[in-house]
């Protein structure tokens, strides 16, 4: 063993800095519960809700809610409601089907390979046996959020086309989040949803 030396200077070695696919182990019920709670009441959710509401208020979309503080409140409530529905449905379907949608950094070399892995991971999940398959939960969650949230949208944003656009944006957000997880330096990843 190492001899006792001075004050603490240790920092985790390279092997310990990020979780790779080999670190996968079947998700437990407790871990599923933690993940779900984090996805609906974690700080990142409120951060991204506020950011999304800020952008759409600045763009005044939908225009019926106006570009003021009340409009910001409506939009923030709407984004949060949609996220709550999407993540609840996604977690429920994942639990029922034994899907695990956690993201593990690829550990691959080369930008193209890493990018391919990150993008494909938005549509794939791991099963308890370690294999990766198409994820119904990853589609059902955003679809449910986009569709059900039309119920409280004003007329200019409540059509089928609007729901499709909202679904597309949610999937794009999921892809972008994976790409950020893959390429961002480790310490910054904790700010990602």
């Amino acid at each position, binding site marked *: 063993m190492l001899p006792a030396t001075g004050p603490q200077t240790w920092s985790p070695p390279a092997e310990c800095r990020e979780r790779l696919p080999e670190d996968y182990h079947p998700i437990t019920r407790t871990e599923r519960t933690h993940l779900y*709670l984090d996805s609906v009441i974690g700080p990142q959710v409120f951060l991204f809700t506020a950011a999304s509401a800020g952008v759409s208020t600045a763009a005044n979309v939908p225009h019926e809610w106006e570009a003021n503080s009340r409009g910001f409140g409506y939009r923030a409530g709407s984004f949060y409601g949609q996220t709550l529905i999407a993540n609840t449905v996604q977690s429920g379907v994942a639990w029922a089907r034994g899907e695990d949608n956690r993201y593990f950094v690829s550990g691959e070399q080369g930008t193209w390979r890493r990018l391919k892995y990150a993008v494909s991971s938005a549509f794939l999940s791991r099963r308890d046996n370690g294999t990766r398959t198409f994820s119904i939960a990853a589609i059902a969650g955003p679809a449910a959020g986009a569709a059900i949230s039309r119920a409280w949208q004003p007329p200019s944003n409540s059509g089928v086309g609007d729901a499709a656009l909202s679904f597309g944006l949610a999937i794009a957000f999921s892809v972008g989040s994976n790409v950020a997880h893959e390429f961002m330096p480790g310490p910054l990843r904790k700010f990602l949803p």
Partner: protein
Amino acid sequence: MRPLLICAVVAAASAAPPPPAACGDPHLPKLLWSEPRLMTNEDWSCGPAGCAARPVPPFHFLKAEQGGSTPKMDVRDSKGRIWSVKFGGEVIPECFGSRFLTALGYFAESTYCVSDFKVQGVTGLPVIVSHQQRPDGSFARARFEIRGDKTMQFLPHCNWAWKDNPFLGSHELGGLKIVMMLLSNWDTKDAHYGDDSNNGVFLSNTSGHPELLYSTFDWGASLGAWGGMMHRDQSDCVSFAADTPKFLEDPAGSELDWGYSGKDTKDITEGVDRDDIRWLLPYLERITPAQLETGFIGSGATPRQARCWTSSLEERIRQLQIAAH
């Protein structure tokens, strides 16, 4: 209605089987620790019972365990021995825990990590177990623990508490608490949790006379992050490493300030002093980093994970060395 309810509760409580007589026998020696033998590389690789005793395929399915959060089944191997097979995230922690505890002189059931195996005659698996099976019918990795171990006979309903046991104030108990923290085992359930306790008693006759071996036997919730409900995990070398700088907040300080947090944190952090560290250190210091890595790989870890856990454990031991001075 209320008297009836009380009667029902009392009846249910009295219907619970009593602990075995040996449990409270004042004449039986009670041991928490014994002088450990030097573990060989083979012990670290296969497990403390050695490679010769490991499970031998083909495995025949006996039954699956219903309920519980961890998938389990019983199988019989080609030598006719019955094994409890556990899947999931507890495989590496349980297999490594038994090696580490044995190396330090604490009592642990012998466990083996078996990879890439098939089980014949598998039928009627509950979903939680069938999800472990690959498309070709094989299983990736599992912990095998022998049923009906003659050397360590588990005594049901015979639990002990961290703050109520025959070893209070001893270095052996302080040392066990340090080992709990070293491996970040946050599942501290003891006799206060009834039969959910991870602190049990085993009857042993290996020394020629019956002895009661006190043991903490479930190490599945270790080698990850310690902490509260929303933070802790298991078998995660990244979060284990992240907690490591906080293992002892100021090792050279006047007070021991443990970073550890578990289900009942004070049960573990209280009653540990520098003399306990000094008592345990010689046993820790004779374990080499190469043996730790071998132990991790033998427990199912990849070489990268083994290096990560080993590096963190070395650092935790270094902090103990500073605290002991």
